[in-house]
């Protein structure tokens, strides 16, 4: 068990930091510090290409797909330095963290060669088509359908249905979509994991305005959208297994980047508390200390999770990580507002637009809902980690 880094690793850290500083005080200075998912998308796409060109986009991937075969320590270092440099939120996140690893793990060689270099080069952005309005947390209840038909260029999948919470869909060139491809199938059977190009008439992306007043998510309508027959990852009908694999990748190294963002948020709250005197309040001090504690624990848990990832089986921290960070972050939002006091009720300008902490307060309410609500997470932990009896599935149909 070792937390420190070797001199070689520290040298790597220096290399990362230097490159980031050069770019972010140079050509990309205007997007430094942007945390919004949607702001300045074009500039952030350029940033993705710059990362890709310098080989920093997906360092954990094999070199032949544009990665650096970086080991865990290097990935940790990169995530830390990326956040420390206040580099912008990754527009390429869905491709690098989810689509890419899924294709790497479950795809065939042709798919790897077609898709991975474009992702790691920052050329093609991705979005995720999992949730549906009727299904929410219940992936087994997917009703978007795809069937194979003959087209002008050979057989292709034709897709009908609707996905929701497709963040970044308006900027993406591709979407990975879970569809029901076997007529009459139910539950986990008969699902397939399709890769679908976004730029086609059969796809309509409509933003969803959320409680912050902004629109980070979308509804995406598939009305005769098509993709080539070969764009299915794993066998047709094997989509459940592939999708579950993708979910596991959500617990990857990107958690460390997220933690650094959390660290920045806590630092902002501490600054606000110092500025307005809340830092003298013993009750607030306790809560700030508790938040700090949570940060250390998340870091340790992520390192445990990542260090033990080779063993295959989900470890204790992998089961508990999602609900832990989501709950922690939601509490951080409450704490931020309690530190701001009544001033936190007011926007600076004339629009319904709030500063970082206020937005975080509102946005963090979604953290305990998306990617498995806290309720679903507790079921998972109880059933899969603790071996308790499964929740009976109802017989009622929606």
């Amino acid at each position, binding site marked *: 068990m070792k937390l420190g880094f070797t001199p070689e690793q520290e040298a790597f850290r220096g290399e990362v930091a230097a490159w980031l500083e050069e770019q972010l005080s140079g050509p990309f200075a205007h997007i430094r510090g942007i945390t919004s998912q949607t702001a300045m998308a074009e500039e952030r796409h350029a940033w993705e290409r710059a990362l890709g060109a310098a080989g920093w986009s997906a360092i954990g991937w094999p070199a032949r797909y544009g990665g650096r075969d970086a080991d865990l320590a290097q990935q940790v270092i990169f995530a830390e330095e990326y956040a420390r440099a206040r580099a912008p939120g990754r527009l390429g996140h869905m491709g690098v963290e989810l689509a890419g690893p899924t294709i790497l793990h479950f795809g065939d060689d042709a798919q790897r060669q077609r898709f991975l270099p474009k992702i790691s080069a920052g050329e093609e952005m991705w979005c995720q088509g999992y*949730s549906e309005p009727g*299904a*929410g*947390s*219940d992936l*087994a*209840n997917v009703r978007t359908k795809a069937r194979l038909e003959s087209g002008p260029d050979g057989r292709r999948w034709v897709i009908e249905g609707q996905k*929701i*919470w497709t963040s970044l869909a308006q900027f993406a060139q591709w979407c990975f979509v879970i569809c029901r491809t076997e007529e009459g199938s139910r539950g986990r059977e008969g699902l397939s994991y399709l890769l679908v190009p976004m730029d086609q008439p059969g796809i309509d992306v409509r933003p*969803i*305005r*959320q*409680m912050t*007043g902004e629109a980070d998510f979308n509804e995406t309508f598939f009305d005769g959208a098509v993709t080539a027959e070969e764009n299915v990852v794993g066998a047709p009908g094997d989509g459940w297994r592939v999708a579950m694999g993708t979910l596991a990748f959500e617990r990857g190294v990107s958690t460390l980047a997220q933690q650094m963002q959390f660290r920045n948020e806590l630092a902002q709250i501490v600054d606000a508390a110092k500025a307005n005197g809340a830092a003298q*309040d013993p*009750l607030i001090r306790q809560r700030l200390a508790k938040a700090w504690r949570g940060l250390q624990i998340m870091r340790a848990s992520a390192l445990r999770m990542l260090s033990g990832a080779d063993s295959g089986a989900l470890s204790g921290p992998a089961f508990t990580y999602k609900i832990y960070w989501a709950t922690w972050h939601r509490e951080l939002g409450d704490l931020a*507002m*309690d530190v701001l*006091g*009544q*001033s*936190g*009720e*007011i*926007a600076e*300008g*004339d*629009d*319904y*637009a*709030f500063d970082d902490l*206020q937005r975080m*307060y*509102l946005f963090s*309410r*979604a953290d*305990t*809902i*998306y990617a498995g*609500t*806290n*309720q679903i997470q*507790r079921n998972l932990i109880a059933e899969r980690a603790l071996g308790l009896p499964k*929740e009976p*599935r*109802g*017989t*009622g*149909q*929606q």
Partner: protein
Amino acid sequence: MQFEFTEEQRLIQNMASEFFRDRGSSEALRAALESERGYDADIWRQMAQELGFAGLTVSDAYGGQGLGLVEAAIVYEQMGRTLLPSPMLGTGVLAATAIEHAGSETQKREWLPQLAGGNRCAALAVCGRGGAHGSARVDAVLEDGRVHGTYRFVLDAQAADLIIAAARRQDEVMLVALPRDGVEVERHVSLDLTRPHHTVRVRGVEPRWELPGSGAAALDVAIQRACILLAAEQTGAAAEALDRTVAYARERVQFGRAIGSFQAVKHRLADMMIQVEAAISAVYFAACSADEAPATLPQMASLAKVQATETLTFCAANMVQLHGGIGFTWEHDAHYFFKRARASATLFGSVAEHQERLAVHMGLEGEAVS
């Protein structure tokens, strides 16, 4: 000793419930928020003039209903279910109570019937730069007959025809009436769209008149009474959040079952009901006690405010959570409840501040925060 509503109280409850069910739909709320004033003038006229809600607790000698806090709380609870914006709290409670407690007979005769009848509006400006409520923290000054100060978090200031402002003359807290056109009112975009805050800047303005009574006492009574009625409103909002979430949990199907059949959801809803019942108990106990024994008002205000704040905060947060993704969208009403909860929590002092006052009331030595 009979701790249930009288026949008359039940009638008030029915009337308020019917009115707000009729006029306080989600569509009505959204339309009001889109309007220039931020509230529906027609509904407000009806509330004030036909139902007498603007002057509920104003004594009948001055054109009000002369009702107690219990009756007023009944109306506020029903109003809270709708989140409907109106100048009721700022005009009918804060300003009217201050005038009734510190005003001269002439001032009361001139202004209270106007306010109680909904013909004119007034706002009470107390809260200084630091943001704290209560007479001990007034930081505006009255020097050489002119008021200088910046008041933050003023309710209903834009609609007000008159601003009753607190200012310090030497060691004494005075209440004065400022002409609306002599002061600068900034209406803020607030997180809670249903009750916008205003900043009132007063740069050497000569008051129209002074209120002769004790400003400090009148302020504290006004804010403490407002705490109890705000708590009633919070309780109504919490009850509504519970009801709507129960309805959703019964009909929304996931995993082949109504989500309300999952114990995690059921128990969370049960916890919401436990909170709502606690808030109802706190609010009516406080209102009844303050009506019967006014000396208990300070601690009763804190009791009601703290409980109702915890209740609404809990219920609104769970309304969002249990509705899942849809509860996070703008098109669903959950966010209005959630933001109202936060805004109400910070209005008239935080939970920690009120609990510290309760600690002092319990005889734990320490400094009262006011």
